[in-house]
């Protein structure tokens, strides 16, 4: 049975983690993170220590970005973190700045979260007054960190780290090639670390309590805890923190989903659609991964409509830069709409699966590559329901 945890939303003494980090060598901060096995909570799950190390190894003034664009349908956890614990996130950014040698930083806040702006800026001002960011941090004249808050433009794809950087540079906001990775060539060419809000919120705890403490939670390859934004057909939707390795069934029980639960969408529109057969599978990087979005569907829901909704979302949100995704999303939607007009058939499904294959193989960024995920899983598990839509 996975443990319910309360780390992300718990308070820490302001400045304690930064003070401790500043007493360590930057390399040591990074070593602790590597040792903790912390991996990104934004979706891709990249090891955070390695990311920071790569930026530090460039040996140039770097940049830290907190990705608060939270655009995945069904997630609202980053918003809550910033509502409750913005100071901790900002402090984590200062720790990162110390570790990688960053002089600048940004909080990239989702446009819809504009109402949080004032509060976060006040928090930033307070921290600056207390010398936790800004000039000569904690009295060290050699350590300054200029942090700014920027509002996102409302495009989902701007949550992708390279598109986000483009957008910060006042460009169109399209995913760039990787390589070079942002840690090599990011904001204005600086080595840049982009981390999710939740990832950052964990950092002060790891610094204060040590890597081993963190590794004690979760599975062998997925250390620590994870926030889940649960919505849909359950009695207690909301935000939950569990250690990694929790099974879908355990989570369903916790949120009081009824016996009529038909499917659970894990990881948002681009994620995995679990049917009853999957409910004993664990949520983790090696199992079913998620950036946090969990949507519960009961028997009353039409899987066809759910699928259609997802694909409509993709079709609207594709940045339009690369062929497989731009055209593929439209063609996929077109194909799916055939079922609504009773023009669907097994052949249509086969053709769309082939299209999905091309999209996942040839799209430029994680968006186009993961569009087919929900299509594939829904169609394979609820084929009859789609065919009879």
């Amino acid at each position, binding site marked *: 049975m996975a443990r319910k945890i309360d780390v992300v939303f718990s308070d820490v003494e302001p400045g304690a983690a930064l003070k401790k980090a500043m007493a360590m060598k930057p390399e040591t901060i990074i070593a602790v993170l590597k040792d903790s096995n912390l991996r990104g909570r934004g979706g891709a799950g990249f090891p955070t220590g390695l990311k920071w190390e790569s930026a530090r190894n460039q040996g140039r003034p770097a940049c830290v970005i907190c990705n608060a664009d939270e655009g995945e349908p069904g997630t609202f956890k980053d918003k809550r973190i910033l509502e409750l614990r913005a100071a901790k996130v900002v402090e984590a950014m200062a720790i990162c700045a110390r570790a990688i040698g960053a002089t600048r930083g940004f909080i990239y806040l989702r446009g819809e979260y504009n109402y949080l702006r004032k509060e976060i800026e006040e928090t930033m001002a307070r921290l600056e007054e207390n010398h936790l960011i800004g000039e000569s941090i904690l009295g060290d004249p050699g350590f300054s960190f200029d942090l700014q808050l920027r509002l996102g433009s409302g495009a989902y794809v701007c949550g992708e780290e390279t598109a986000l950087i483009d957008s910060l540079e006042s460009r169109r906001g399209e995913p760039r090639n990787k*390589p070079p990775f942002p840690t090599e060539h990011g904001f204005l060419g600086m080595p840049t670390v982009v981390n999710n809000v939740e990832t950052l919120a964990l950092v002060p705890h790891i610094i204060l309590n040590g890597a081993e403490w963190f590794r004690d939670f979760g599975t062998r390859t997925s250390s620590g805890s994870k926030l889940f934004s649960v919505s849909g057909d359950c009695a207690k939707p909301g935000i939950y923190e569990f250690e990694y390795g929790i099974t879908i069934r355990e989570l369903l029980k916790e949120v009081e989903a009824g016996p009529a639960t038909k499917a659970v969408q894990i990881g948002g529109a681009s994620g995995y659609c679990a049917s009853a057969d999957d409910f004993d599978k664990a949520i983790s990087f090696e199992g079913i991964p998620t950036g946090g979005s969990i949507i519960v569907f009961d028997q009353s829901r039409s899987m066809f409509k759910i699928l259609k909704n997802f694909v409509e979302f993709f079709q609207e949100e594709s940045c339009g*830069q690369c*062929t497989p995704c*731009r055209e593929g999303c439209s063609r996929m939607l077109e194909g799916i709409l055939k079922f609504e007009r009773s023009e669907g058939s097994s052949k249509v499904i086969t053709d769309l699966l082939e299209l999905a294959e091309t999209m996942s193989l040839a799209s430029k960024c994680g968006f186009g590559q993961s569009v087919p995920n929900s299509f594939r899983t829904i169609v394979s598990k609820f084929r009859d329901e789609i065919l009879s839509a």
Partner: protein
Amino acid sequence: MVKAKINGKLVEVAEGTTVLEAAEKIHVRIPKLCHNDDLEPWAACGLCIVKNGRNPKMLRACCTPLEEGMDIITTDAELVQTRKTVIELILSTHPDDCLACPRNQECELQRLAAEFGVREQPFPKRLRFLPIDNSTGAIVLNPEKCIRCGRCVKVCQDMQNVWAVEFLGRGESTRIAPAGDVLLGEGPCIRCGQCAAHCPVGAIYENDQTTEVWEALMKTGEGEKTCVVQIAPAVRVALGEAFGLKPGTNITRKIYAALRRLGFDAVFDTNFAADLTIMEEGTEFVKRFTAAMKDAQAGKAPAAAVLSGGAAGAATLTGAAAGAALEGPLPLITTCCPAWVDYLEKYWPDMIPNFSTSKSPQQMMGAMVKTYWAAMAKIDAAKIFSVAIMPCTAKKYENSRDETMYSSGHKDVDVTLTTRELARMIKQAGVDILELPDEEADSPMGHYTGAGVIFGATGGVMEAALRTAYTLVTGEELKNVEFTSVRSISGIKEARIDIKGTEIRVAVAHQMGNIETVLRRVKKAKDEGVEVPWHFIEVMACRGGCIGGGGQPYGCTDEVRKLRIRGIYDDDDKSTYRASHLNPYIKKVYAEFLEEPGSHKAHKLLHTHYTPKPIYMK
């Protein structure tokens, strides 16, 4: 160096070499639509995907550096199928309009569809019905055919730094559009045509005016019109490519012959007018330079002081620039490139006084044809139809730029055709150009020097001007006319030239995006009141100079540019005269008609002026 395998073959390449480049080194072509050798890769089209060993994830060859030990597979059944689907996806929003398309048979998409054996289009067509924009009169934008590869955007923003086109909308409704969604002709576009030269399909192309020329030629037969044509320096080393020749092959004399077969009554060479430009501009330079030196000696304008040695040589200049005009500050900046002129008027109007007032060779020739030649040939200038064959789309705009382009009392150049349009006309006429006997151009405006022909390459105008300026200053002829330091393809070239103890500092910039650095340095010096870094600056908007112009045959890369440049300098090498002032026919037209450089008549026919222009018209 990194060692890796591509299709089982061991390759060793420098670190940072992309998979695509490494594959090309061993003659493996990987299909691509968005990538172009002139541009940084950005991985949009999705065609250059390859595999690395057993890894199921596909990589984009255009932007993935080859790494030690990689085992790249560029083709297998799955890759072919995936690429074919990508092509089909592109076709699903693309009009099947090949037969009536400006890129028919020269289209990268069409070629790929053929190579991949697209036989049916599995995705239903969704055309977008976007309007065509021909507001510039030079290049036409047809967004309907745009496959959203992004090349034009990168060219216009990164290579040219003009930012005249951009993508608007997202997802499926992403479309190419002039910046700010205005008409192309009402925004920053300088009509350089580099977007058209790089577009893989028929979405941006030159405004085809061959019909107008055919109609005029028909009237020649009826005695109603006399059709006169000139060809620019850069055309001769590129036109052959449209007929299967290697880039750089010089077919000047076959072009003359072909133009006569098309029905032109007189065939002149813009190179002659380039020699004329040098006489005017070279004089202009010497005059400004000498004035600056005198001021410096009189202690009047230390900022412009330029001498390292003495001013002794300058004395010999007396009388060479007798006209009232031609005065102005240093640095003198060349103006033969109309795209550059447009850029300067829009973005750097403060620098207008530094612009040479000498017209471009195209316009000088136009003015001379309808005045000097008309009188000589006893033809009513009103009946002359004057055509210019240019490597350039901006020249189409230049010929009606302002009232000085009507200095003969008529439109000095009636129509400008690009090299691509000429190739088309020759094909339409069924003229087997490569089999024609060599012919000469008509006299006197068909005779040119090596200085005239090198106008086609970056650095050429500067070199030609220096050859003549030397003589204007010293009264002596140069022993070695080659100023090799201003040749080469690097974006900004600088040189210090010693004219008998007087040092002249020059800069040459080409490809619009490189110009800003140069101008900033000049502006900074001016603002600070210190000596300007250069006395003379040559600017060409296109990479490599006119040989890389927006109207040249497709497929221009640095390799092609270098070959074309070599073709140009070979012509110079072989010339009897290599400095403009030595051209006997130039001497003749001054003696018979123009009097001297900067004369009142020269001023009226051969000079122009500039006005600040808004970047966006309202």
